[in-house]
């Protein structure tokens, strides 16, 4: 009889663990719709760029579909099943898709011109100027709204790169070495905050996958290719930003 509460507790813990671990999805897209009326009043913006995770090549991808059926059954599925059971599901996942540290180190020097906040910030300010996104802007070194206001900025534009690097192209199988195909990917968090009211005027998570596909060997051998693709990606994000915050139909939806 005493074992009944214990069983109930065990079932409860199991249920809670499954719920906590299995759910909680996270998606990209618009978090806060642009408040166009307030955005149109911005005369000068402070741009803060943050690279949260540096350049990484995420090409170490192994699929059981690439293995023979016997190996797939024995080594792949059964091995991973046992591996998952023993190591909390992490074993199987890490074995599949993890950063290729060798390739990252080899390509790092090529990414250097665009792998720092200042270079990205300067490129973005030029793009904003050309696309007439904001009348004026300056690069600032801190996310502090008070500092942005002190320097005469009406708003702070946060451009946080959550991840950037190379990934396998959509739907392709991984090939080893320099033949491996790769596309540039960029995940950016964009946030525009009023420095006067501290109100978020627009917030969005933007995933970008380059339309061009190259081999890893191309990125190694062609000097400046990675930097060119990164600038191309930044230009896209800049153009989309201009479209999102400068076109008026949202006004009707965002107005109370």
């Amino acid at each position, binding site marked *: 009889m005493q074992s009944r509460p214990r069983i109930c507790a065990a079932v409860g813990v199991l249920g809670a663990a499954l719920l*906590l*671990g299995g759910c909680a999805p996270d*998606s990209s897209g618009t978090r806060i719709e642009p408040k166009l009326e307030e955005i149109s009043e911005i005369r000068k913006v402070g741009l803060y760029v943050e690279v949260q995770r540096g350049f990484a090549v995420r090409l170490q991808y192994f*699929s059981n*579909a690439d293995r023979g059926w016997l190996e797939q059954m024995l080594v792949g599925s059964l091995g991973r099943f046992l591996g*998952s059971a023993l190591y909390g599901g992490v074993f199987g996942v890490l074995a599949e898709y993890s950063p290729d540290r060798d390739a990252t180190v080899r390509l790092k020097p090529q990414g250097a011109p665009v792998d720092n906040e200042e270079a990205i910030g300067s490129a973005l300010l030029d793009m904003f100027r050309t696309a007439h996104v904001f009348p004026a802007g300056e690069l600032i070194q801190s996310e502090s709204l008070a500092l942005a206001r002190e320097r005469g900025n009406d708003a702070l534009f946060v451009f946080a790169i959550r991840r950037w690097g190379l990934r396998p192209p*959509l739907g392709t199988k991984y090939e080893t070495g320099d033949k491996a195909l790769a596309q540039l990917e960029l995940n950016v968090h964009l946030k525009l905050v009023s420095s006067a009211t501290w109100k978020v005027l627009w917030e969005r998570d933007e995933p970008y996958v380059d339309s061009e596909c190259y081999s890893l060997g191309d990125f190694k051998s062609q000097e400046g290719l990675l930097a060119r693709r990164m600038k191309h990606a930044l230009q896209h994000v800049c153009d989309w930003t201009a479209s999102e915050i400068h*076109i008026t139909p949202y006004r009707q939806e965002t107005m109370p």
Partner: protein
Amino acid sequence: MKLKRVITEFVAVSTISLLPCAGCGSKQVNLALDYGPTKTGLLSDLKPAVLSLRVADHRPKEQRNGIGVQRNTTFGTERGVVVSKTSESQVVYNSLKAELERSGHRVLESGQGDAATTIDVALTQFFIDSKAADSDIELLGSIRAEVMTPAGTADMPSISLFVVESAYLHRVRMGWVRPVALGGLSGAFLSKTSKRDLQKTMNGALAEFVRRFCLEPKLRQAVVRAAQETGTQSSERPAIKSQ
């Protein structure tokens, strides 16, 4: 004898239950993709126009059989081919039409009526990809199309060609929160993407595609031009007297 029987039954049941996990139970996953237009319409600030919309499938042949694969990520095996119940070009056509109509514009199929402007959409990518990322599964829906609209002036007409692309990232969380002992087994059984996840990702990519299409400055110029021509045509056309 009894123990031997129990062991035999256990092994048989385990093997049978492992087969679907190992990918032998692979099947086709049918997604019902749809788009709900925005409340007021993304192009509702422009004067009403009559437009003709054409969507053609220009994807490579090998991509037309399915829009991706569903992976059982912990095992790495492919569980099934992901397909759309309605053809992809029709899904895109219906979505764009719904948003344009919500914005107050009239959309005609090609060859139906006399629209002032024809918007040609050539679909070049419609894909969902699943990759393991850290301890999660990352689903990426991607749609890309080349769009052709008339541009220039009445005296100097030209064609405007631009690319509309969208990506939608949906991360299905799997790992770290679970206790190791429980997480191992639950991870093994649960770490696969469900049909609901795939559907959400592709519908998200579709919504982003429509949004980007409507916000594209060249498309908006084409709608403005169509509205002007629609106005000119209607003023030129003699009024039909009621009998």
